[in-house]
C-alpha cells in the first residue's frame, strides 16, 4: 500500500472492518420482530374487519352509488340551507324574543346580586354595587336588549297573517313590559351616571315602542275579527338621530322632575291602585328628587334615574289602564252580544266585575271616569278616522284593489318601507338643518314669553325636535297662508296659548306623537310665534283633518319616535 490510498485501499479497509452480528443478536431480534409483527397483524385484522363492516353501512363501494350518495347529501344540504335562509319571520321573531328574555334573565340575576351586595354584612372587603365594573356590562346588555327587541319588532312587521302578527305582538308586548320592569329595577341598582342615562333612554324607547306595539296588536286583532287576510304593521323602532338628540339635551333635572309630576298626576287621575313595587319606585324617585333639590350638582343627584324610573312608572300605569280598558271593551261586547241574544241582565253583573277589577274596593273617582271616557272618546275618534281613511282609500282604489293579491300586498309593504326610509332621511336632513335654528328660536321665545314658561317650553321644543319629525307635510301650505294672521292671533290668545300648551304637555307624548298633521316644518322656517300657533292648530287638526292620515302606522295614535 503506497502513501496515497486508492479507492481499492479504502474498500479493503472497510471490508477488513466488516463484522458479523452475533448469533444471539440475530435470534433475539428475529423473535422480537416476529412477536411485533404477529401482534400488529392481529390488530390490523380486527381493525380492518371492523372498518370494512362499518364502511358498508356508510360509503358504498360502488362508485356509482357513491355519486348517488353525494347527490342525496347535496340535495339535503341545499334544502337545509334554503330552509334556514327562508325561515319564517315568526320563528326569527321568537328567537329574538328568546334572546331578549335571556338578557332580561341576566339583568334580573344582576339585580339580585346587586341587592345582595348592598346588604350591610360584616365583611373584610365591603364592596358596593357602584364599585363593580359590571356596570359597563349592564349598559351593554341593556343596549343589546333594545336592539334585540327592535329586531323582533322588525320581524313582526314582516308577518302577513293577522293572527300570527297579533300573537307575536302580544309576546313582544309581554317581553317589553317585563323589560321595563326589570330595567326600572336595574336603574335603581347602578350608580354610574352614563349607565343610568343609557338605561333611562332604553326605558323611554321601550315604553314608546310598547305603546305602538299594543296599538298594532289591537289593529291586528281587529283584522282577525274582520277576517282580513293580511295586516300591515309599521312600528318605527329607535333611530340614531334620536339618540343624538337625547345626548344633546342630556338628562335635565327639570325635565325629569316635570315628568315625575306628570306621572304623579296620572296616577291620581287614573285611580289605579299603587302596589308595593310601584310604591317602592315612587319612593325612590322622591328620594332622588330630594337629593337633587338639596344640591343639583351633587354626585348623588341622578336626574337620569328620576327620568327613567318615572317613565317606567308611567308605562306601568298606562299598561294597567290599557288592560282595564280592554277588559271593559270585552265586557261591553259580551253585553251587546247577550243583549242581541236576549239576556240583558248580565250587564249589571259585568260592570260590577269590572269595578272589582279596577278599584279593588276603592270606588271610582270622577277623574278616573273622565279619563277613561276621554280614552274611549279618543279611540272612537281614532276608529272614525280610520273609517274615513278606509272609505277614502276605497274611493281612490278601483273595486278590484279591495281584495289585493298577495303580490300586491307585498308591493304595498315594500312601498311603505321605502316611504318609511325616505321619511327617516328627510327627517334627519331637516333635523340637521334646524339644530341651529332651534336654539335661536328658543332664545327668542324666552324673551317674548314669561320666564315661568321656560322649562315647559323647552320640554315642548325638545319633543318637537325629536317627536314631531314624523309629520306629513300636508299642512305646510295652510300654515304658510295663515302665517300673517297667526301673529295677530297669537297676541290675542297669548294667555290661552300658555294654558293650552300646558295641557298638551300634560297629555304627554302619546297624544302628540300620533298626529300625522303635525307641523314640524313650520317650526324650522317660521318664527317662534308659529311654534305656539302650531300647537293650537294641532288640536284643531286632531279633530278635523282626520281623513288625511298618510300611513297606517300612525293610525295607532302613537307615532313613532324619531
Amino acid at each position, binding site marked *: *500500500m503506497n*502513501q*496515497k*490510498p486508492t*479507492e481499492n*485501499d*479504502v*474498500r*479493503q*479497509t*472497510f*471490508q*477488513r*472492518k*466488516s*463484522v*458479523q*452480528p*452475533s448469533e444471539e*443478536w*440475530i435470534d433475539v*431480534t*428475529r423473535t*422480537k*420482530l*416476529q412477536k*411485533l*409483527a*404477529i401482534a*400488529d*397483524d392481529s390488530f390490523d385484522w380486527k381493525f380492518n374487519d371492523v372498518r370494512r363492516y362499518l364502511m358498508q353501512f356508510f360509503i358504498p363501494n360502488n362508485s356509482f352509488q357513491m355519486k348517488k350518495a353525494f347527490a342525496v347529501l347535496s340535495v339535503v344540504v341545499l334544502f337545509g340551507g334554503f330552509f334556514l335562509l327562508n325561515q319564517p319571520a315568526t320563528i326569527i321573531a321568537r328567537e329574538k324574543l328568546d334572546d331578549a328574555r335571556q338578557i332580561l334573565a341576566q339583568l334580573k340575576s344582576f339585580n339580585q346580586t346587586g341587592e345582595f351586595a348592598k346588604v350591610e354584612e360584616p365583611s373584610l372587603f365591603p364592596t358596593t354595587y357602584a364599585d363593580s365594573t359590571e356596570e359597563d356590562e349592564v349598559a351593554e346588555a341593556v343596549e343589546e336588549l333594545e336592539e334585540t327587541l327592535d329586531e323582533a319588532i322588525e320581524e313582526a312587521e314582516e308577518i302577513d297573517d293577522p293572527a300570527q302578527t297579533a300573537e307575536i305582538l302580544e309576546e313582544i308586548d309581554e317581553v317589553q313590559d317585563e323589560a321595563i320592569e326589570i330595567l326600572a329595577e336595574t336603574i335603581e341598582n347602578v350608580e354610574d351616571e352614563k349607565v343610568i342615562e343609557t338605561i333611562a333612554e332604553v326605558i323611554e324607547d321601550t315604553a314608546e315602542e310598547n305603546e305602538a306595539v299594543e296599538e298594532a296588536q289591537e289593529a291586528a286583532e281587529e283584522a282577525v275579527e274582520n277576517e282580513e287576510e293580511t295586516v300591515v304593521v309599521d312600528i318605527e323602532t329607535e333611530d340614531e338621530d334620536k339618540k343624538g338628540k337625547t345626548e344633546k339635551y342630556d338628562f335635565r333635572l327639570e325635565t325629569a322632575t316635570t315628568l315625575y309630576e306628570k306621572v304623579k298626576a296620572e296616577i291620581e287621575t287614573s285611580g289605579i291602585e299603587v302596589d308595593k313595587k310601584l310604591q317602592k319606585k315612587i319612593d325612590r324617585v322622591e328620594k332622588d328628587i330630594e337629593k337633587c333639590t338639596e344640591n343639583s350638582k351633587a354626585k348623588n343627584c341622578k336626574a337620569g334615574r328620576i327620568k327613567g324610573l318615572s317613565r317606567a312608572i308611567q308605562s306601568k300605569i298606562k299598561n294597567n289602564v290599557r288592560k282595564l280598558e280592554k277588559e271593559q271593551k270585552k265586557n261591553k261586547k259580551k253585553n251587546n252580544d247577550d243583549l242581541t241574544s236576549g239576556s240583558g241582565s248580565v250587564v249589571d253583573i259585568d260592570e260590577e266585575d269590572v269595578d272589582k277589577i279596577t278599584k279593588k274596593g276603592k270606588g271610582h273617582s270622577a277623574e278616573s271616569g273622565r279619563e277613561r271616557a276621554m280614552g274611549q272618546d279618543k279611540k272612537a275618534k281614532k276608529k272614525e278616522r280610520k273609517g274615513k281613511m278606509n272609505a277614502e282609500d276605497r274611493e281612490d282604489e278601483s273595486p278590484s284593489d279591495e281584495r289585493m293579491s298577495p303580490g300586491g300586498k307585498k308591493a304595498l309593504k315594500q312601498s311603505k318601507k321605502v316611504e318609511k326610509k325616505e321619511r327617516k332621511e328627510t327627517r334627519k336632513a331637516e333635523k340637521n338643518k334646524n339644530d341651529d335654528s332651534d336654539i335661536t328660536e328658543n332664545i327668542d321665545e324666552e324673551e317674548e314669553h314669561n320666564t315661568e314658561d321656560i322649562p315647559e317650553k323647552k320640554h315642548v321644543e325638545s319633543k318637537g325636535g325629536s317627536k314631531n319629525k314624523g309629520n306629513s307635510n300636508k299642512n305646510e301650505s295652510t300654515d304658510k297662508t295663515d302665517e300673517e294672521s297667526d301673529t295677530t292671533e297669537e297676541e290675542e290668545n297669548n294667555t290661552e296659548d300658555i294654558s293650552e300648551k300646558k295641557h298638551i304637555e300634560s297629555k304627554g307624548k302619546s297624544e302628540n306623537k300620533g298626529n300625522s298633521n303635525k307641523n314640524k316644518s313650520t317650526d324650522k322656517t317660521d318664527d317662534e310665534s308659529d311654534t305656539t300657533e302650531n300647537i293650537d292648530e294641532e288640536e284643531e287638526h286632531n279633530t278635523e283633518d282626520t281623513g288625511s292620515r298618510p300611513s297606517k302606522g300612525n293610525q295607532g295614535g302613537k307615532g313613532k319616535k324619531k
Partner: protein
Amino acid sequence: MINEIKSSQDLDALFLEFHKIIYNYIYARTSRREDADDIAQEVFFRAWKYRKSYNAKKSNCKTWLFTIAHNSLKDYYKKQSNNSTTPLEEEIYDTLPGTTDIAAEISEKMESEKIWQQVKGLNPREQNPLTLRYQQDLPIKEISTILGMEYSTAKVALHRTLKKLQQVMLKNH
C-alpha cells in the same frame, strides 16, 4: 425480491436477507457493537412500523432499508454528541482473517488501520457516502437516494471525501 411487507413472514424474510449488511454499515459508522446491536434492531422495527411507506416501484428494498438505517444513525448522533471509537486492539483482532505471511499481514493491517483512523476522523456527513460506497458497494444513484441528495451532489461529495482522505494520509506520512 420483496415487493411488499405485509405479514410477519415478509418481515422475517427481509431480516434474513439484509441484517448482515445493515449491521455492518451501522457498525462501520458507530464502531461499537453495543450500539450496532441496538441501532440495527431499531432499523428492522422501523421497517415494520413504516412498512406502508415502502414502494417497490420507487426504490428497491435494500435502498429503503439503508434510508431507514441512515435516519436511525442520525438520531443516534443526535443522542450521542461524542462519537466514541472502539479500542483499536479489539477491533483489529476481531477482524483478523487467518494468514500465513504474518509480516505482510501486519503491515497491511497497520496501513488499513491508519486509513480507518483517518476515516473515523472525518465528520459523519463525509463518512456516510464513503461507507455506503466502499463497504456496501452501492451505486452512486442509490447512495443519493439513501442520503436524500442529488446524484451529482452525492458524486461530488464522495470524490471530495476521498481526496481529503488522501491529503490527510500524505500529510501524516
